[in-house]
């Protein structure tokens, strides 16, 4: 099943009056159940690509579709709703609100949606990620690994079709990094969702179905 499609998408920035092509014309399709890695040196355009996938910025040209809907022309409110319902972000610095406990991170989602807190679902996720006992703690009280697992839980709580992870293992040691990538592989395969991760860590690539490399804004499929 097709989840996301990029058709001749490119992105330009103006810097000091000079046009910089952050992403050159790119086309690819992402399918459900795929774990995809994007690698490349710093400043190569990885984050630009990821933010366009997440609807955080529009392309300069080309067409992006998410589950058949045109993401590139969608207004900001609709993109916000789509991001909230369908896209999960896992950030390098973890996507947790610092003044909410781990359990409250889930409650925030339901408060925003004005619906009843799904305690059973959050507990199931926390149990699965082995952080249930840390539910009443603040993110700052957790270790790096626990924080990242909590961030994954939070991203999965809305049951997104697309999971976008920006350097999810950057702050973790080898063992914890492996635990996290195995977890991501499992949640991608078992729930038939698509996961895209931007990484510098070559050890994660063996767990990915496809690997894209981006250099100077040019995206190529490595395997």
């Amino acid at each position, binding site marked *: 099943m097709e989840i996301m499609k990029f058709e001749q998408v490119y992105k330009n920035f103006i810097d000091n009056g000079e046009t910089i092509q952050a992403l050159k014309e790119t086309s690819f399709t992402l399918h459900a159940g795929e774990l995809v890695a994007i690698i490349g040196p710093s400043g190569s355009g990885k*984050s630009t690509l*990821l*933010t366009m996938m*997440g609807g*955080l*910025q529009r392309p300069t040209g080309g067409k992006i579709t998410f589950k058949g809907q045109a993401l590139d022309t969608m207004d900001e*409110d609709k993109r*916000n*709703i*789509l*991001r*909230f*319902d369908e*896209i999960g*972000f896992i*950030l390098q*610095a973890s*996507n*947790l*609100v*610092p*003044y*909410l406990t781990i359990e*409250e991170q889930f*409650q*925030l*989602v339901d*408060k*925003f949606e004005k619906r009843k807190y799904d305690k059973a679902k959050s507990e199931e996720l926390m149990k699965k990620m082995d952080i249930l006992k840390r539910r009443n703690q*603040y993110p700052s009280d957790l270790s790096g690994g626990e924080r990242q697992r909590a961030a994954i839980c*939070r991203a999965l709580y809305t049951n997104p079709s697309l999971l976008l992870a*920006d350097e999810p293992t950057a702050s973790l040691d080898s063992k914890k990094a492996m635990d996290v990538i195995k977890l991501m592989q499992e949640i991608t395969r078992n729930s038939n969702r698509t996961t895209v991760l931007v990484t510098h860590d070559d050890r994660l690539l063996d767990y990915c179905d496809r690997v894209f490399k981006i250099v100077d804004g040019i995206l190529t499929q490595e395997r």
Partner: protein
Amino acid sequence: MFLALKEIKKEKGRFLLIISIVVLISYLVYFLLGLAYGLALDNTTAIYRLQAKKIILADGSNKNIQSSLIELETLQQELKGLDYSLINLGRSSAYINGQKDDRHTISLVIIGSESNAKIAPTILEGRAVMQDNEAVASISLKHEKDLAIGDTIKIAMNEKEFKVVGFTSEAKYNTSSVIYTDLENASAASMIFKADDTKEPIKILKRVSAAVIHTDEPITLTSNLEIISIQDFINSIPGYQAQILTFGLMIIFLVLISSIVLGVFLYIITIQKKQTFGIMKVQGISSSYISKSVLLQTLIVSVSGLFIGISLTYITQLFLPVRVPFKIDLLFIIAITLLMIFTTILGALFSVKSVAKVDPLEVLN
């Protein structure tokens, strides 16, 4: 509500600090308000208690009752058929029980009226004036100078002695306490004559200070008299407007400055949370939801700070010496509180604007 309360719970120290700033500023504002109102009352309670709409003074008296002297006969002819009360007002230093030390010396206003007049004082303790040289005193003299029924008040100007036979509710004019007596005893003639000047000068009442009118009906005067509204008369009390304007400006500026200080504080705190707001926006949580939380936090901080400020003001009132002209008026408190909440919210709107400007891309970069 959820985000606002959870953050306050987590960042107790930070929010206590902001609330304490609101408490201190609002305490100062309410305290000044109490002093301003107290001082205003010290100038005017005796006038408000006259229940008058207008006052008739001699032409050229410059709206000053102490400069006014009107022929009684003329006045009675002019006001025939109207609802009015004649009034005499004198001013002098006086001594309680003849003792001339600081504790027993008072600055006094003597108001004279006919015993059946509308402006005659309501008795709280003791009885009304029934005989010559008797007076009913403002209860403030009991509280401030320990005056008691049966005590005598000797007027320094003419050495006339009044026996205190009762107390009425607090009455002050131009910051001086008032004693009430009959029309003759407070007349200008009575005030300037000493006992040995003539045998009974005060019994010849030819002139009065003024007349107050109790109704709003239009009056046409043919003699050389001036008719002014009671509010105009109050505004002309020497020093009254200067006091009101000074305190008023101080309070308004304090409210504005406190709102700016609070607004800046909240703005700095909001800016510090840019990263967090970015995270929430990446997750799809809207700017309006985050902004509502910032506004609610401002409301919680200001309302709780103002509530503590009001409580402290009431507690302070209990411990202030009675001589300090400090009075709390609930209506003024409510008005100033609403004004402070409004201006604080206005200041918080700058924070809201900064929330809307947070770019989630910054979090990813």
